[in-house]
Protein backbone atom coordinates (compact mmCIF):
# COMPACT_ATOMS: atom_id res chain seq x y z
CA UNK A 1 0.00 0.00 0.00
CA UNK A 2 1.18 3.49 -0.83
CA UNK A 3 2.33 5.71 1.99
CA UNK A 4 0.89 9.21 1.72
CA UNK A 5 2.51 10.83 4.72
CA UNK A 6 5.48 9.83 6.78
CA UNK A 7 6.99 11.65 9.74
CA UNK A 8 10.49 10.51 10.69
CA UNK A 9 11.80 11.38 14.16
CA UNK A 10 10.18 14.79 14.05
CA UNK A 11 10.98 17.05 16.99
CA UNK A 12 9.78 20.55 17.73
CA UNK A 13 10.36 22.59 20.83
CA UNK A 14 9.27 26.04 21.96
CA UNK A 15 11.90 27.51 24.23
CA UNK A 16 12.51 24.86 26.87
CA UNK A 17 9.33 22.94 26.14
CA UNK A 18 9.65 19.98 23.83
CA UNK A 19 6.18 19.92 22.28
CA UNK A 20 6.81 17.06 19.88
CA UNK A 21 9.56 14.55 20.58
CA UNK A 22 10.95 12.09 18.02
CA UNK A 23 7.58 11.35 16.52
CA UNK A 24 7.24 8.68 13.84
CA UNK A 25 3.95 8.49 12.07
CA UNK A 26 2.74 7.22 8.74
CA UNK A 27 -0.50 7.24 6.82
CA UNK A 28 -1.40 4.89 4.01
CA UNK A 29 -3.51 5.90 1.08
CA UNK A 30 -7.22 5.99 1.90
CA UNK A 31 -6.70 5.46 5.59
CA UNK A 32 -8.68 7.21 8.29
CA UNK A 33 -6.40 7.62 11.26
CA UNK A 34 -7.02 9.20 14.65
CA UNK A 35 -4.61 11.18 16.78
CA UNK A 36 -5.56 11.30 20.44
CA UNK A 37 -4.02 12.28 23.70
CA UNK A 38 -4.51 14.60 26.68
CA UNK A 39 -4.56 18.37 26.27
CA UNK A 40 -1.12 19.75 25.58
CA UNK A 41 0.22 16.44 24.30
CA UNK A 42 1.29 18.06 21.03
CA UNK A 43 -1.49 16.99 18.68
CA UNK A 44 -2.12 20.38 17.12
CA UNK A 45 1.62 21.00 16.96
CA UNK A 46 1.91 17.90 14.81
CA UNK A 47 -0.78 19.32 12.53
CA UNK A 48 1.11 22.58 12.35
CA UNK A 49 4.28 20.71 11.46
CA UNK A 50 2.60 18.69 8.74
CA UNK A 51 0.93 21.75 7.20
CA UNK A 52 4.12 23.81 7.25
CA UNK A 53 3.01 26.38 9.82
CA UNK A 54 6.01 25.30 11.94
CA UNK A 55 9.33 23.95 10.77
CA UNK A 56 10.56 20.89 12.62
CA UNK A 57 13.77 21.33 14.66
CA UNK A 58 14.90 17.93 13.49
CA UNK A 59 13.49 14.98 11.59
CA UNK A 60 11.94 14.78 8.14
CA UNK A 61 8.47 14.88 6.70
CA UNK A 62 7.65 13.02 3.50
CA UNK A 63 4.59 13.46 1.34
CA UNK A 64 4.06 10.74 -1.24
CA UNK A 65 7.69 9.79 -0.82
CA UNK A 66 8.94 13.30 -1.43
CA UNK A 67 10.79 15.25 1.25
CA UNK A 68 8.67 18.27 2.13
CA UNK A 69 10.40 19.28 5.35
CA UNK A 70 10.51 23.05 5.75
CA UNK A 71 7.99 23.89 3.05
CA UNK A 72 5.77 26.82 3.93
CA UNK A 73 2.07 26.60 4.68
CA UNK A 74 0.84 27.78 1.30
CA UNK A 75 3.18 25.36 -0.47
CA UNK A 76 1.87 22.44 1.56
CA UNK A 77 -1.67 23.49 0.72
CA UNK A 78 -0.80 23.48 -2.96
CA UNK A 79 0.67 20.00 -2.56
CA UNK A 80 -2.74 18.85 -1.37
CA UNK A 81 -2.42 18.97 2.40
CA UNK A 82 -5.43 20.81 3.73
CA UNK A 83 -6.71 21.21 7.25
CA UNK A 84 -9.48 22.49 9.43
CA UNK A 85 -8.76 24.34 12.65
CA UNK A 86 -9.49 23.51 16.24
CA UNK A 87 -10.87 26.98 16.91
CA UNK A 88 -12.79 27.47 13.65
CA UNK A 89 -10.96 29.84 11.34
CA UNK A 90 -13.38 30.84 8.64
CA UNK A 91 -13.20 34.19 6.88
CA UNK A 92 -15.89 35.78 9.05
CA UNK A 93 -16.84 38.83 6.97
CA UNK A 94 -17.00 36.85 3.72
CA UNK A 95 -20.08 35.00 2.59
CA UNK A 96 -20.41 31.23 2.82
CA UNK A 97 -19.92 30.99 -0.93
CA UNK A 98 -16.84 33.21 -0.87
CA UNK A 99 -15.29 31.13 1.89
CA UNK A 100 -15.45 28.13 -0.42
CA UNK A 101 -14.39 30.14 -3.45
CA UNK A 102 -11.22 31.24 -1.66
CA UNK A 103 -10.25 27.61 -1.32
CA UNK A 104 -10.65 27.15 -5.05
CA UNK A 105 -8.42 30.10 -5.80
CA UNK A 106 -5.05 28.43 -6.16
CA UNK A 107 -6.43 25.35 -7.83
CA UNK A 108 -7.10 27.27 -11.01
CA UNK A 109 -3.86 29.29 -11.19
CA UNK A 110 -5.50 32.60 -12.01
CA UNK A 111 -3.63 35.57 -13.38
CA UNK A 112 -3.48 38.88 -11.52
CA UNK A 113 -3.51 41.08 -14.60
CA UNK A 114 -6.49 39.19 -15.92
CA UNK A 115 -8.30 39.85 -12.66
CA UNK A 116 -7.81 43.61 -12.62
CA UNK A 117 -8.60 43.97 -16.31
CA UNK A 118 -11.53 41.56 -16.07
CA UNK A 119 -10.55 39.63 -19.18
CA UNK A 120 -12.44 36.82 -20.86
CA UNK A 121 -10.26 34.18 -19.34
CA UNK A 122 -10.70 35.51 -15.85
CA UNK A 123 -14.47 35.78 -16.26
CA UNK A 124 -14.70 32.19 -17.47
CA UNK A 125 -12.50 31.04 -14.61
CA UNK A 126 -14.64 32.95 -12.17
CA UNK A 127 -17.63 31.09 -13.51
CA UNK A 128 -15.90 27.74 -13.08
CA UNK A 129 -14.95 28.67 -9.51
CA UNK A 130 -18.51 29.61 -8.65
CA UNK A 131 -20.01 26.48 -10.14
CA UNK A 132 -17.57 24.24 -8.34
CA UNK A 133 -18.16 26.12 -5.08
CA UNK A 134 -21.90 25.58 -5.37
CA UNK A 135 -21.35 21.91 -6.06
CA UNK A 136 -19.31 21.56 -2.87
CA UNK A 137 -21.86 23.53 -0.84
CA UNK A 138 -24.57 21.21 -2.12
CA UNK A 139 -22.68 18.14 -0.92
CA UNK A 140 -22.72 19.69 2.53
CA UNK A 141 -26.28 20.95 2.36
CA UNK A 142 -25.20 24.55 2.73
CA UNK A 143 -26.15 25.89 -0.67
CA UNK A 144 -29.23 27.71 0.63
CA UNK A 145 -26.95 29.71 2.94
CA UNK A 146 -24.50 30.73 0.22
CA UNK A 147 -25.12 34.48 0.61
CA UNK A 148 -24.98 34.52 4.40
CA UNK A 149 -21.91 35.81 6.15
CA UNK A 150 -19.82 32.98 7.56
CA UNK A 151 -19.87 34.63 10.98
CA UNK A 152 -23.66 34.55 11.08
CA UNK A 153 -23.92 30.75 10.84
CA UNK A 154 -24.62 28.69 13.92
CA UNK A 155 -21.68 26.81 15.36
CA UNK A 156 -22.42 23.40 13.87
CA UNK A 157 -22.80 24.83 10.40
CA UNK A 158 -19.59 26.78 10.76
CA UNK A 159 -17.83 23.47 11.42
CA UNK A 160 -19.52 21.99 8.38
CA UNK A 161 -18.50 24.96 6.28
CA UNK A 162 -14.93 24.59 7.42
CA UNK A 163 -14.88 21.01 6.18
CA UNK A 164 -16.60 22.05 2.96
CA UNK A 165 -13.99 24.73 2.40
CA UNK A 166 -11.20 22.23 3.02
CA UNK A 167 -12.68 19.77 0.52
CA UNK A 168 -13.10 22.46 -2.12
CA UNK A 169 -9.31 22.71 -2.16
CA UNK A 170 -9.22 19.09 -3.43
CA UNK A 171 -6.87 17.71 -0.81
CA UNK A 172 -5.07 14.38 -0.99
CA UNK A 173 -4.55 14.50 2.70
CA UNK A 174 -7.14 16.05 4.97
CA UNK A 175 -6.33 17.00 8.55
CA UNK A 176 -9.31 17.54 10.83
CA UNK A 177 -8.58 19.23 14.13
CA UNK A 178 -11.34 18.29 16.59
CA UNK A 179 -14.17 18.29 14.06
CA UNK A 180 -16.75 17.19 16.63
CA UNK A 181 -15.78 19.68 19.33
CA UNK A 182 -18.84 21.36 20.79
CA UNK A 183 -21.29 19.20 18.87
CA UNK A 184 -24.18 17.36 20.47
CA UNK A 185 -24.43 13.57 20.09
CA UNK A 186 -26.78 13.79 17.12
CA UNK A 187 -24.58 16.24 15.28
CA UNK A 188 -21.59 14.06 16.09
CA UNK A 189 -23.10 10.97 14.54
CA UNK A 190 -24.14 12.98 11.50
CA UNK A 191 -20.57 14.18 11.22
CA UNK A 192 -19.28 10.62 11.42
CA UNK A 193 -21.47 9.66 8.50
CA UNK A 194 -20.36 12.72 6.60
CA UNK A 195 -16.69 11.97 7.07
CA UNK A 196 -17.16 8.41 5.88
CA UNK A 197 -19.08 9.65 2.89
CA UNK A 198 -16.55 12.28 1.85
CA UNK A 199 -13.63 9.94 2.26
CA UNK A 200 -15.15 7.53 -0.22
CA UNK A 201 -16.46 10.23 -2.52
CA UNK A 202 -13.29 12.32 -2.65
CA UNK A 203 -10.64 9.55 -2.34
CA UNK A 204 -9.12 11.01 0.77
CA UNK A 205 -6.60 10.08 3.36
CA UNK A 206 -7.68 11.58 6.66
CA UNK A 207 -5.88 12.26 9.91
CA UNK A 208 -8.06 13.58 12.67
CA UNK A 209 -7.64 14.84 16.20
CA UNK A 210 -10.60 14.18 18.46
CA UNK A 211 -11.44 13.89 22.12
CA UNK A 212 -14.76 12.16 21.64
CA UNK A 213 -13.72 8.51 22.05
CA UNK A 214 -16.92 7.08 20.65
CA UNK A 215 -16.25 9.10 17.55
CA UNK A 216 -12.59 8.09 17.23
CA UNK A 217 -13.13 4.44 18.02
CA UNK A 218 -16.15 4.26 15.76
CA UNK A 219 -14.60 5.80 12.69
CA UNK A 220 -10.81 5.36 12.69
CA UNK A 221 -8.95 2.36 11.32
CA UNK A 222 -5.86 3.16 13.30
CA UNK A 223 -5.12 5.42 16.23
CA UNK A 224 -1.97 7.13 17.43
CA UNK A 225 -1.81 8.12 21.09
CA UNK A 226 0.32 11.05 22.10
CA UNK A 227 1.47 11.97 25.58
CA UNK A 228 3.97 14.71 26.42
CA UNK A 229 4.93 14.98 22.77
CA UNK A 230 5.70 11.30 22.36
CA UNK A 231 3.82 8.53 20.62
CA UNK A 232 3.00 6.07 23.40
CA UNK A 233 0.84 3.70 21.39
CA UNK A 234 -0.32 3.00 17.88
CA UNK A 235 -2.73 0.48 16.47
CA UNK A 236 -6.34 -0.37 15.70
CA UNK A 237 -8.97 1.01 18.10
CA UNK A 238 -9.65 -2.29 19.90
CA UNK A 239 -6.00 -2.59 20.76
CA UNK A 240 -5.68 1.03 21.88
CA UNK A 241 -8.68 0.76 24.14
CA UNK A 242 -7.04 -1.97 26.18
CA UNK A 243 -3.47 -0.67 26.13
CA UNK A 244 -2.47 -0.09 29.77
CA UNK A 245 -0.26 2.89 28.94
CA UNK A 246 -3.07 4.62 27.10
CA UNK A 247 -5.50 3.92 29.91
CA UNK A 248 -3.07 5.38 32.37
CA UNK A 249 -2.21 8.46 30.35
CA UNK A 250 -5.50 9.31 28.78
CA UNK A 251 -8.50 7.04 28.79
CA UNK A 252 -8.69 6.16 32.46
CA UNK A 253 -10.22 2.96 33.87
CA UNK A 254 -13.52 1.93 32.28
CA UNK A 255 -16.50 2.17 34.61
CA UNK A 256 -17.46 -1.32 35.67
Amino acid at each position, binding site marked *: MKTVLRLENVTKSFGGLVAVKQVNLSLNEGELVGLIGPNGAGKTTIFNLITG*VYRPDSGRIFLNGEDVTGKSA*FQMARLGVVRTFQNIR*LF*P*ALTVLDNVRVALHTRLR*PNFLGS*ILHTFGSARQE*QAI*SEEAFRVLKVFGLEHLSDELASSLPYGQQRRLEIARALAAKPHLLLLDEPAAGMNPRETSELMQLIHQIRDQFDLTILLIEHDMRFVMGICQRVYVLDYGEVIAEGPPEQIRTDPRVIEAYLGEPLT
Partner: protein
Amino acid sequence: MSLCVLKNMPQLATETANLKPSRSSGGTRTFLKTVLLIVAIALALACLDPLLSNRELFSPYAFRILMLIGINITLAVSLNLVNGLAGQFSIGHAGFMAVGAYTSAALTYYVMGYPHGGILSTLWILAAMIVGGVAGGIAGFLVGIPSLRLRGDYLAIVTLGFGEIIRIIILNVDAVGGPRGFSGIPYLTSFFWVWSTALGTIALSRNLVTSTHGRALMAIREDEVAAQAFGINTVRYKVAAFVLSSSLAAVAGVLYAHYDTYLNPSSFGFIRSFEVIIMVILGGMGSTSGAVAGAVIVTLLPELLRAAAAVRMLLYSALLIALMLLRPQGIMGHRELSWKQIQSLFLRQRRRAKA
Protein backbone atom coordinates in the same frame (compact mmCIF):
# COMPACT_ATOMS: atom_id res chain seq x y z
CA MET B 1 -20.75 64.19 -9.70
CA SER B 2 -20.01 61.17 -7.59
CA LEU B 3 -23.26 59.56 -8.56
CA CYS B 4 -22.42 60.06 -12.19
CA VAL B 5 -19.08 58.34 -11.67
CA LEU B 6 -20.72 55.31 -10.21
CA LYS B 7 -23.35 55.08 -12.88
CA ASN B 8 -20.65 54.85 -15.47
CA MET B 9 -19.12 51.78 -13.93
CA PRO B 10 -19.63 48.75 -16.13
CA GLN B 11 -18.43 46.21 -13.58
CA LEU B 12 -20.72 47.22 -10.76
CA ALA B 13 -23.61 45.07 -11.82
CA THR B 14 -21.71 41.97 -12.81
CA GLU B 15 -20.92 40.84 -9.29
CA THR B 16 -24.00 38.69 -8.94
CA ALA B 17 -24.50 38.18 -12.65
CA ASN B 18 -21.21 36.28 -12.81
CA LEU B 19 -22.87 33.34 -11.13
CA LYS B 20 -25.52 32.90 -13.74
CA PRO B 21 -24.32 30.69 -16.59
CA SER B 22 -26.67 32.36 -19.08
CA ARG B 23 -24.55 35.48 -18.98
CA SER B 24 -21.40 33.82 -20.24
CA SER B 25 -22.87 32.84 -23.60
CA GLY B 26 -22.84 36.45 -24.73
CA GLY B 27 -19.10 36.81 -24.14
CA THR B 28 -18.33 38.81 -27.25
CA ARG B 29 -21.40 40.92 -26.73
CA THR B 30 -20.39 41.94 -23.23
CA PHE B 31 -16.89 42.61 -24.51
CA LEU B 32 -18.22 44.87 -27.24
CA LYS B 33 -20.50 46.56 -24.74
CA THR B 34 -17.57 47.25 -22.43
CA VAL B 35 -15.47 48.67 -25.26
CA LEU B 36 -18.35 50.85 -26.40
CA LEU B 37 -18.92 52.06 -22.86
CA ILE B 38 -15.25 52.94 -22.42
CA VAL B 39 -15.24 54.83 -25.73
CA ALA B 40 -18.46 56.62 -24.80
CA ILE B 41 -17.10 57.67 -21.42
CA ALA B 42 -13.82 58.83 -22.95
CA LEU B 43 -15.73 60.84 -25.56
CA ALA B 44 -17.96 62.38 -22.93
CA LEU B 45 -14.94 63.38 -20.85
CA ALA B 46 -13.18 64.76 -23.92
CA CYS B 47 -16.26 66.84 -24.78
CA LEU B 48 -16.62 68.13 -21.23
CA ASP B 49 -12.95 69.03 -21.08
CA PRO B 50 -13.00 72.25 -23.19
CA LEU B 51 -16.30 73.33 -21.62
CA LEU B 52 -15.10 73.01 -18.06
CA SER B 53 -11.66 74.49 -18.62
CA ASN B 54 -13.18 77.55 -20.28
CA ARG B 55 -12.78 80.23 -17.65
CA GLU B 56 -15.75 82.21 -18.86
CA LEU B 57 -18.18 79.31 -18.77
CA PHE B 58 -16.97 77.61 -15.62
CA SER B 59 -15.37 79.29 -12.65
CA PRO B 60 -11.68 78.43 -12.18
CA TYR B 61 -12.38 77.88 -8.51
CA ALA B 62 -14.98 75.23 -9.21
CA PHE B 63 -12.72 73.73 -11.85
CA ARG B 64 -9.88 73.43 -9.36
CA ILE B 65 -12.12 71.65 -6.87
CA LEU B 66 -13.31 69.31 -9.60
CA MET B 67 -9.71 68.46 -10.45
CA LEU B 68 -8.77 67.93 -6.81
CA ILE B 69 -11.76 65.66 -6.31
CA GLY B 70 -10.63 63.54 -9.26
CA ILE B 71 -7.09 63.29 -7.93
CA ASN B 72 -8.32 62.50 -4.42
CA ILE B 73 -10.65 59.79 -5.70
CA THR B 74 -7.65 58.13 -7.36
CA LEU B 75 -5.71 58.37 -4.10
CA ALA B 76 -8.51 57.13 -1.86
CA VAL B 77 -9.59 54.26 -4.09
CA SER B 78 -6.00 53.09 -4.50
CA LEU B 79 -5.30 53.27 -0.76
CA ASN B 80 -8.48 51.32 -0.14
CA LEU B 81 -6.97 48.38 -2.03
CA VAL B 82 -4.32 48.01 0.65
CA ASN B 83 -6.06 49.33 3.76
CA GLY B 84 -9.59 48.19 3.11
CA LEU B 85 -9.37 45.18 0.84
CA ALA B 86 -6.17 43.50 2.00
CA GLY B 87 -6.51 44.87 5.55
CA GLN B 88 -2.92 46.09 5.81
CA PHE B 89 -2.67 49.43 7.53
CA SER B 90 -0.40 51.56 5.38
CA ILE B 91 0.04 55.26 6.14
CA GLY B 92 2.66 56.25 3.60
CA HIS B 93 0.46 57.00 0.63
CA ALA B 94 1.68 60.59 0.27
CA GLY B 95 5.19 59.21 -0.14
CA PHE B 96 4.18 57.26 -3.25
CA MET B 97 2.30 60.24 -4.55
CA ALA B 98 5.49 62.29 -4.12
CA VAL B 99 7.54 59.66 -5.96
CA GLY B 100 5.23 59.92 -8.96
CA ALA B 101 4.98 63.70 -8.79
CA TYR B 102 8.70 64.37 -8.54
CA THR B 103 10.03 61.77 -10.98
CA SER B 104 7.55 62.78 -13.66
CA ALA B 105 8.12 66.49 -13.01
CA ALA B 106 11.87 66.00 -13.32
CA LEU B 107 11.27 64.13 -16.56
CA THR B 108 9.05 66.75 -18.16
CA TYR B 109 11.08 69.69 -16.82
CA TYR B 110 14.59 68.45 -17.64
CA VAL B 111 14.17 65.98 -20.46
CA MET B 112 11.07 66.68 -22.47
CA GLY B 113 10.70 70.43 -22.06
CA TYR B 114 7.57 72.47 -22.62
CA PRO B 115 5.45 70.93 -25.36
CA HIS B 116 4.21 73.01 -28.25
CA GLY B 117 0.84 71.99 -29.54
CA GLY B 118 -2.06 69.92 -28.30
CA ILE B 119 -1.11 66.45 -29.49
CA LEU B 120 2.37 66.79 -28.04
CA SER B 121 1.08 67.70 -24.60
CA THR B 122 -1.14 64.64 -24.75
CA LEU B 123 1.88 62.46 -25.48
CA TRP B 124 3.88 64.26 -22.79
CA ILE B 125 1.35 63.71 -20.03
CA LEU B 126 0.87 60.09 -21.08
CA ALA B 127 4.61 59.50 -20.91
CA ALA B 128 4.76 61.29 -17.55
CA MET B 129 1.91 59.16 -16.18
CA ILE B 130 3.54 55.95 -17.32
CA VAL B 131 6.97 56.86 -15.97
CA GLY B 132 5.50 58.15 -12.70
CA GLY B 133 3.30 55.09 -12.31
CA VAL B 134 6.19 52.72 -12.91
CA ALA B 135 8.40 54.67 -10.47
CA GLY B 136 5.65 54.48 -7.85
CA GLY B 137 5.23 50.79 -8.48
CA ILE B 138 8.96 50.17 -8.03
CA ALA B 139 8.95 52.22 -4.83
CA GLY B 140 5.96 50.22 -3.63
CA PHE B 141 7.76 46.97 -4.41
CA LEU B 142 10.92 48.02 -2.58
CA VAL B 143 8.97 49.13 0.49
CA GLY B 144 6.48 46.29 0.33
CA ILE B 145 8.91 43.37 0.17
CA PRO B 146 10.43 43.90 3.62
CA SER B 147 7.54 45.66 5.35
CA LEU B 148 4.59 43.49 4.36
CA ARG B 149 6.01 40.68 6.43
CA LEU B 150 4.96 42.82 9.36
CA ARG B 151 1.42 43.24 10.55
CA GLY B 152 -0.80 45.92 12.01
CA ASP B 153 0.95 48.65 13.95
CA TYR B 154 4.40 47.62 12.77
CA LEU B 155 3.47 47.97 9.14
CA ALA B 156 1.90 51.35 9.89
CA ILE B 157 5.12 52.56 11.47
CA VAL B 158 7.28 51.32 8.59
CA THR B 159 5.10 52.93 5.93
CA LEU B 160 4.92 56.17 7.92
CA GLY B 161 8.71 56.14 8.12
CA PHE B 162 8.97 55.51 4.40
CA GLY B 163 6.78 58.50 3.61
CA GLU B 164 8.97 60.72 5.74
CA ILE B 165 12.15 59.34 4.16
CA ILE B 166 10.87 60.23 0.70
CA ARG B 167 10.00 63.74 1.87
CA ILE B 168 13.41 64.26 3.43
CA ILE B 169 15.24 62.93 0.37
CA ILE B 170 13.34 65.42 -1.77
CA LEU B 171 14.17 68.20 0.67
CA ASN B 172 17.83 67.47 0.05
CA VAL B 173 17.87 67.13 -3.72
CA ASP B 174 18.62 70.53 -5.13
CA ALA B 175 17.79 69.60 -8.71
CA VAL B 176 14.09 69.35 -7.76
CA GLY B 177 14.20 72.53 -5.73
CA GLY B 178 14.79 71.11 -2.27
CA PRO B 179 12.90 73.06 0.39
CA ARG B 180 12.22 75.90 -2.06
CA GLY B 181 9.94 73.64 -4.01
CA PHE B 182 9.95 72.63 -7.66
CA SER B 183 8.54 75.31 -9.93
CA GLY B 184 8.21 75.70 -13.66
CA ILE B 185 6.70 72.27 -14.28
CA PRO B 186 4.78 72.35 -17.57
CA TYR B 187 1.00 72.52 -17.26
CA LEU B 188 -0.15 69.31 -18.88
CA THR B 189 -2.96 67.96 -16.76
CA SER B 190 -6.45 68.32 -18.10
CA PHE B 191 -9.88 67.46 -16.85
CA PHE B 192 -9.88 64.53 -19.24
CA TRP B 193 -6.75 62.92 -17.78
CA VAL B 194 -7.70 63.48 -14.15
CA TRP B 195 -11.14 62.02 -14.53
CA SER B 196 -10.24 59.15 -16.83
CA THR B 197 -7.58 58.19 -14.28
CA ALA B 198 -10.12 58.40 -11.47
CA LEU B 199 -12.68 56.34 -13.39
CA GLY B 200 -10.02 53.91 -14.54
CA THR B 201 -8.85 53.45 -10.96
CA ILE B 202 -12.40 52.79 -9.83
CA ALA B 203 -12.84 50.27 -12.65
CA LEU B 204 -9.59 48.45 -11.82
CA SER B 205 -10.49 48.41 -8.17
CA ARG B 206 -13.97 47.04 -8.83
CA ASN B 207 -12.57 44.38 -11.14
CA LEU B 208 -10.10 43.35 -8.50
CA VAL B 209 -12.67 43.29 -5.69
CA THR B 210 -15.04 41.02 -7.61
CA SER B 211 -12.27 38.76 -8.87
CA THR B 212 -10.77 35.69 -7.29
CA HIS B 213 -7.66 37.70 -6.44
CA GLY B 214 -9.78 40.24 -4.60
CA ARG B 215 -11.26 37.40 -2.60
CA ALA B 216 -7.82 36.10 -1.81
CA LEU B 217 -6.86 39.55 -0.51
CA MET B 218 -10.01 39.70 1.60
CA ALA B 219 -9.20 36.25 2.95
CA ILE B 220 -5.81 37.60 4.02
CA ARG B 221 -7.56 40.49 5.75
CA GLU B 222 -9.96 38.13 7.50
CA ASP B 223 -7.50 35.50 8.65
CA GLU B 224 -3.96 35.37 7.39
CA VAL B 225 -3.19 31.92 8.81
CA ALA B 226 -6.26 30.38 7.23
CA ALA B 227 -5.57 32.12 3.91
CA GLN B 228 -2.12 30.57 3.91
CA ALA B 229 -3.55 27.18 4.76
CA PHE B 230 -5.50 27.42 1.51
CA GLY B 231 -2.51 27.94 -0.70
CA ILE B 232 -2.45 31.72 -0.78
CA ASN B 233 1.09 33.09 -0.76
CA THR B 234 0.16 35.95 1.53
CA VAL B 235 3.34 38.01 1.23
CA ARG B 236 3.20 37.88 -2.54
CA TYR B 237 -0.44 38.93 -2.69
CA LYS B 238 0.04 41.75 -0.25
CA VAL B 239 3.02 43.01 -2.24
CA ALA B 240 1.00 42.81 -5.47
CA ALA B 241 -1.81 44.88 -3.95
CA PHE B 242 0.70 47.30 -2.51
CA VAL B 243 2.49 47.77 -5.85
CA LEU B 244 -0.78 48.36 -7.67
CA SER B 245 -1.91 50.80 -5.02
CA SER B 246 1.33 52.79 -4.86
CA SER B 247 1.58 52.92 -8.61
CA LEU B 248 -1.92 54.42 -8.86
CA ALA B 249 -1.08 56.89 -6.10
CA ALA B 250 2.00 57.89 -8.08
CA VAL B 251 -0.14 58.53 -11.17
CA ALA B 252 -2.31 60.79 -9.01
CA GLY B 253 0.91 62.55 -8.02
CA VAL B 254 1.86 63.00 -11.69
CA LEU B 255 -1.47 64.63 -12.42
CA TYR B 256 -1.17 66.85 -9.36
CA ALA B 257 2.36 67.98 -10.31
CA HIS B 258 1.37 68.91 -13.84
CA TYR B 259 -1.76 70.62 -12.67
CA ASP B 260 -0.30 72.86 -9.98
CA THR B 261 3.00 73.22 -11.91
CA TYR B 262 4.63 73.71 -8.52
CA LEU B 263 5.58 71.06 -5.97
CA ASN B 264 6.65 71.53 -2.39
CA PRO B 265 7.92 68.71 -0.17
CA SER B 266 5.81 69.96 2.71
CA SER B 267 2.64 69.03 0.85
CA PHE B 268 3.67 65.35 0.91
CA GLY B 269 4.08 64.99 4.65
CA PHE B 270 2.19 62.52 6.79
CA ILE B 271 -0.72 64.95 7.10
CA ARG B 272 -1.41 64.32 3.45
CA SER B 273 -1.30 60.55 4.05
CA PHE B 274 -3.71 60.92 6.94
CA GLU B 275 -6.05 62.92 4.77
CA VAL B 276 -6.29 59.99 2.36
CA ILE B 277 -6.81 57.59 5.24
CA ILE B 278 -9.62 59.80 6.52
CA MET B 279 -11.28 59.54 3.11
CA VAL B 280 -11.07 55.75 3.17
CA ILE B 281 -12.27 55.36 6.76
CA LEU B 282 -14.99 57.95 6.39
CA GLY B 283 -16.32 56.24 3.28
CA GLY B 284 -16.14 52.76 4.79
CA MET B 285 -13.05 50.55 4.78
CA GLY B 286 -13.07 48.06 1.96
CA SER B 287 -15.79 49.72 -0.07
CA THR B 288 -14.78 51.29 -3.39
CA SER B 289 -17.85 53.48 -3.59
CA GLY B 290 -17.18 54.45 0.02
CA ALA B 291 -13.67 55.59 -0.89
CA VAL B 292 -15.15 57.68 -3.70
CA ALA B 293 -17.71 59.22 -1.35
CA GLY B 294 -15.01 59.87 1.24
CA ALA B 295 -12.78 61.59 -1.31
CA VAL B 296 -15.62 63.83 -2.45
CA ILE B 297 -16.65 64.77 1.08
CA VAL B 298 -13.16 65.43 2.40
CA THR B 299 -12.39 67.62 -0.61
CA LEU B 300 -15.69 69.48 -0.67
CA LEU B 301 -16.43 69.95 3.00
CA PRO B 302 -13.70 72.52 3.79
CA GLU B 303 -14.77 74.45 0.70
CA LEU B 304 -18.43 74.45 1.58
CA LEU B 305 -17.53 75.69 5.04
CA ARG B 306 -15.70 78.73 3.72
CA ALA B 307 -18.68 80.84 4.69
CA ALA B 308 -17.94 80.04 8.32
CA ALA B 309 -14.61 81.87 7.96
CA ALA B 310 -12.70 81.73 11.24
CA VAL B 311 -14.34 78.63 12.67
CA ARG B 312 -14.13 76.76 9.37
CA MET B 313 -11.55 74.14 10.30
CA LEU B 314 -13.12 73.74 13.74
CA LEU B 315 -16.46 72.97 12.13
CA TYR B 316 -14.79 70.65 9.65
CA SER B 317 -13.19 68.58 12.40
CA ALA B 318 -16.39 68.58 14.42
CA LEU B 319 -18.34 67.31 11.42
CA LEU B 320 -15.81 64.55 10.79
CA ILE B 321 -15.96 63.48 14.43
CA ALA B 322 -19.74 63.54 14.38
CA LEU B 323 -19.82 61.41 11.23
CA MET B 324 -17.47 58.90 12.76
CA LEU B 325 -19.49 58.73 15.98
CA LEU B 326 -22.77 58.30 14.16
CA ARG B 327 -21.46 55.86 11.59
CA PRO B 328 -18.27 54.23 12.83
CA GLN B 329 -18.31 51.73 9.97
CA GLY B 330 -18.10 54.61 7.46
CA ILE B 331 -20.71 55.97 5.10
CA MET B 332 -20.92 52.86 2.96
CA GLY B 333 -19.69 50.34 5.52
CA HIS B 334 -18.64 47.21 3.66
CA ARG B 335 -21.31 47.64 1.04
CA GLU B 336 -21.07 48.90 -2.51
CA LEU B 337 -23.30 51.14 -4.51
CA SER B 338 -24.30 49.16 -7.57
CA TRP B 339 -25.82 49.99 -10.87
CA LYS B 340 -28.79 47.79 -10.01
CA GLN B 341 -29.42 49.62 -6.76
CA ILE B 342 -29.43 52.96 -8.54
CA GLN B 343 -31.77 51.55 -11.16
CA SER B 344 -34.19 50.19 -8.63
CA LEU B 345 -34.08 53.50 -6.78
CA PHE B 346 -35.11 55.32 -9.93
CA LEU B 347 -37.76 52.75 -10.75
CA ARG B 348 -39.22 53.03 -7.28
CA GLN B 349 -39.39 56.78 -7.58
CA ARG B 350 -41.04 56.57 -10.93
CA ARG B 351 -43.58 54.10 -9.59
CA ARG B 352 -44.25 56.37 -6.67
CA ALA B 353 -44.68 59.30 -9.03
CA LYS B 354 -47.23 57.33 -11.06
CA ALA B 355 -49.22 56.27 -8.06
